[in-house]
């Protein structure tokens, strides 16, 4: 018996479907292979490029990484706590490496906020303020970008391009630009993070909005509600928990962004960290890293907890 005979006779339509499937599968495989090759080339290329940009010193210097870590080790481990809480160090010899007590920010009488906590608050403040402002601008832009809310293609196009533009540049680029105009400090950092936040949240938000159930909207439309009323009463209640949840996630990201911008002149804890590292102040660097680490963990935990509460409630309300 030949192979051809055992093959069942296929109906015309079945055969068409099978061929179409085979065709798409083989082209999909081809794309996968091409994709993997491209990624491999890109990876090797970018490593080499980064090395060259480092004037070829990256691989050469790799063994010296340990040298870098050496200076970090303080002469007295207790200095880390002293640096963190601005207590005087017994090693204080008048140099900047040990002038822990000098940074105290007196609030009332003998009560003071340690310098690093104050700087951390500055950084957190930049992040919180710019997340809130960015959020407030992202929401209307997202409604203007959503197909189910805004019928005008021109408005949608405009709103989406604005978000894309703002998202395209990292905070650092905006920060550099604003620093040139407004001089260095927290204000350009705030503007920079706000702009990037609007772009990032606007995009996420409009996708959430486009996925809402339109039946409540039709209900509000059927009583004669205006577009604003339809957004307020039919769309917003559906999306608000999700929007806030993404806003909190953005806050986490913005705490990091605001630290980094600080390091390049935006003030706050980032700047202090860069100074401590560049001058080789081991105890100070460790104190700053510890504080930063604990703060980021705290922000992450807090926002995760709040998001869980929000989404949990959301699920409860959707259950009929």
């Amino acid at each position, binding site marked *: 018996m030949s192979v051809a005979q055992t093959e069942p006779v296929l109906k015309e339509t079945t055969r068409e479907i099978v061929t179409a499937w085979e065709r798409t599968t083989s082209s999909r495989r081809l794309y996968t292979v091409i994709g993997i090759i491209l990624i491999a080339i890109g990876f090797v290329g970018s490593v080499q490029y980064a090395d060259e940009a480092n004037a070829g010193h990256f691989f050469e210097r790799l063994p010296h990484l340990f040298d870098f870590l050496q200076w970090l080790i303080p002469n007295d481990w207790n200095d880390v706590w002293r640096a963190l809480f601005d207590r005087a160090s017994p090693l204080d010899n008048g140099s900047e490496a040990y002038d822990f007590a000098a940074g105290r920010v007196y609030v009332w009488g003998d009560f003071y906020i340690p310098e690093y906590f104050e700087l951390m608050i500055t950084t957190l403040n930049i992040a919180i303020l710019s997340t809130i402002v960015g959020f407030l601008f992202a929401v209307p832009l997202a409604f203007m970008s959503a197909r189910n809310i805004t019928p005008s293609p021109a408005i949608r196009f405009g709103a989406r391009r604005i978000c894309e533009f703002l998202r395209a540049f990292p905070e650092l680029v905006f920060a550099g630009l604003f620093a040139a105009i407004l001089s260095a400090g927290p204000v350009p950092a705030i503007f920079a993070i706000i702009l990037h936040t609007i772009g990032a949240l606007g995009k996420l938000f409009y996708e959430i909005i486009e996925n809402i159930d339109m*039946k*409540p909207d*039709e*209900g*509000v*439309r*059927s*009583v*004669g*509600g*205006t577009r*604003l*009323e339809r957004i*307020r*009463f*039919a769309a917003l*209640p*559906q999306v608000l928990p999700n929007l806030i949840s993404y806003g909190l996630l953005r806050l986490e990201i913005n705490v990091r962004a605001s630290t980094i911008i600080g390091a390049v002149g935006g003030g706050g804890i980032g700047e202090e960290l860069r100074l401590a590292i560049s001058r080789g102040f081991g105890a100070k660097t460790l104190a700053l890293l510890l504080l930063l680490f604990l703060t980021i963990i705290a922000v992450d935990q807090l926002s995760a907890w709040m998001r869980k509460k929000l989404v949990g409630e959301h699920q409860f*309300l*959707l*259950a*009929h």
Partner: protein
Amino acid sequence: MFELKQVSRVFGRKTAVDSVSFAIPAGQMVGVIGRSGAGKSTLMRMLNRLTDPTSGSIVFDGLEVSALKGSALRSWHRDCAMIFQQFNLVPRLDVLTNVMLGRLNHRSSMMSVLGLFSREERIMAIAALERLGIEQTALQPAGTLSGGQQQRVAIARALMQQPKVLLADEPIASLDPMNAKIVMDALRDINEREGITVITNLHTLDTARAYCQRIIGMAGGRVVFDGTPAELTTEAVNRIYGADGAIDETMTSTAINLVPSPKPVAAGVLVSAVH
């Protein structure tokens, strides 16, 4: 008085409603029946203007409904209330707010966006809920109510609009027989008490016979029957549901008449609170 002249609606190549003409005098309770896909929902939505007619004219008391735009159209939405099979409430908002949404077109947009409903409106909303026997749910999120309760909230919202016409698109299709009876009784009560024209799509013949003074039968987008329940003969039923003659009325029945009425909602309890 509703007057439709040659009203059609086309979706792509599909004619959902095909040159429909009829007139409905004020205060009538009309049932629209027909197979799924006959164009009943599309017809309803055109009356309310949630969907625009492709051609033809819809006139209500001299008002050219089919030509309305902007705020005049929103006023028409207010005057021509609609309730839906899937209720279309806002599940996250509490029941009272959902009912007060019926006042949106009676007030300034800025006030309502800020959520500022007046004390009178709250009282009115509670009265409407009492009339439908669900005032105890007022503070719950609407999404947590049962289907029958949600439909009653939707009717309360419609009452708040103080409409001239009440449209209902399959209002009882997702309800159990007992809730179906409560909802149908409420619609009849609104029709009789306030004299509001009620037009409702129904998928059960016996409900249409029991509640409506007039029945309009649709098939393939056209009106193929228009008369009283008494005139709806087996022959007419076959014209509406298909000529195979195999339609047994009890098959489409939700048997609501077999369920002992739990409490006469249409009488006693109901106080005309809104008007």
